[in-house]
């Protein structure tokens, strides 16, 4: 069984992990064009090289980043996403009063 090093749980079987796609910068959905959004959602490089990808350790629900070669399947490095996303993202929608 192929193993992957989870930054939170250590070395685990690859079957415990779920692939989450290439790490890409998300365009601002409020201001980007439909084409830019489609590019972000559907289109990818799909190259043979070392690719930075999202992975999920399913049993613990933990998302992290792995650098993997898509030709040899060699996993070079795995790390916590905080390395890329050091700033906290606020999802605060302004509260509106619900009328009965």
């Amino acid at each position, binding site marked *: *069984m*192929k193993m992957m090093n989870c930054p939170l749980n250590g070395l685990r079987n*690859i*079957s415990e992990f*779920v*692939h989450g*796609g290439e790490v890409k910068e998300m365009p601002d959905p409020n201001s980007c064009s*439909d*084409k830019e959004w*489609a*590019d972000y959602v*559907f*289109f*990818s*490089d*799909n*190259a*043979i090289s070392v690719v930075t990808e999202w992975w999920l350790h399913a049993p613990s629900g933990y998302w992290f980043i792995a650098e993997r070669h*898509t*030709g*040899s*399947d060699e996993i070079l490095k795995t790390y916590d996403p905080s390395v890329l996303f050091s700033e906290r993202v606020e999802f605060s929608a302004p509260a509106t009063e619900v009328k009965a």
Partner: protein
Amino acid sequence: MPFSLLKYGLNKDYPFEQHADLPKPTELKPHYDVVIIGGGGHGVATAYYLAKYHGITNVAILEKSYLGGGNTARNTAVIRSNYLTSEGVKFYSESVKLFKELSNEFDFNIMYSQRGQLTLAHTDAAVRGFRQRAEVNKHFGGKTELIDPQQIRELVPTLNMNPADMPVLAGLWHMDGATARHDAVAWGYAKGATQRGVELHQLTEVTDVIVQQGKVTGVKTNRGNVSCGCVVQAVAGHSSLLAAKAGFKMPITTFPLQAMVTQPVKPFLDPLVSSPSLHCYVQQTGRGELVFGGGSDPYPLYSTRSTMDLKESLLANAVELFPFMANMRLMRQWAGLTDMTSDYSPIMGLSPVDNYYLDAGWGTWGFKSTPICGKSMAELVASGGKVPELIKPFSMDRFNAFRQVNEMGATAASH
């Protein structure tokens, strides 16, 4: 014999054997009207229909390896049209019709064998889904119906009706389901195309695509440069890599798809049997071997290695369906690189580069579409870029317009 073997062994050139029905390889010409990249089933079928119906014969098929050596030789040779979307069913039923006539048309036996395909439902939700697929199919002239467990027992007496404690509730019986010798399909098309003047260049790898002012004007290969009027790319798992050379991205991810085959046994299984819930399909070839296939690998990769994980999960379920197979031995295993799209439908038609046509995104549904895809692509090329009605829903632009063709009847989707 020993001398010829010695000569073969000491040959400095790559000693590939010349196919009896194909003309000897020639030098590349400096210009072709049409360059087709990829000498698999789709590429040679496109060339064949271009020559046959449109009289376009100044065509070169450039293949980096050998004729039909990629996914054409790696699929599990299933031909069916019992898909879910009306766009899909219309398209694949045309393919089934063409397949039936191919042996006669080629004067070459592709061993087309119509045995019917049986898909098993183990849940109420699957039964409902099958009912819809049966109706969509009948509407477009296919022969598909929902059958009950008693009818399933009669069709496949050896089937375990309670595999993995998931009783078989109903089946989708697709009478048009068939199989054919996949290599022979590529050989037949190649023979027909080259007889009409098309050039097939094996061991010719396209290293770059020459694009000038948004228009493709030629390709660079390991055997020199070639200028051309237009390009058709039909390279399956390597679609994104070739597109990158032409300067654009595709909505494709490349996953390995594994399959395997057992030692041959006496014939006992006529229909092709598939169980989406058990992620497994089984068929017996004309030689008596059992072919197993399942879903794609769980993550993208450009490698045709086989894994123990997949064998364990796939074969455990295959043995649930046919328990007496438990002691059979596997003879071969292999994998192909599938170009998966997120909606499980292909990509055919125009690209962001002028005169550069796409035939990609064939995931797990490429072989069965070979004839109709070739015919449609030939029409597209011959008309200078007017997309035929049948393949309009499958343009790459559908992703930019958020108009995907959600094909949940695809093997990769349902398995």
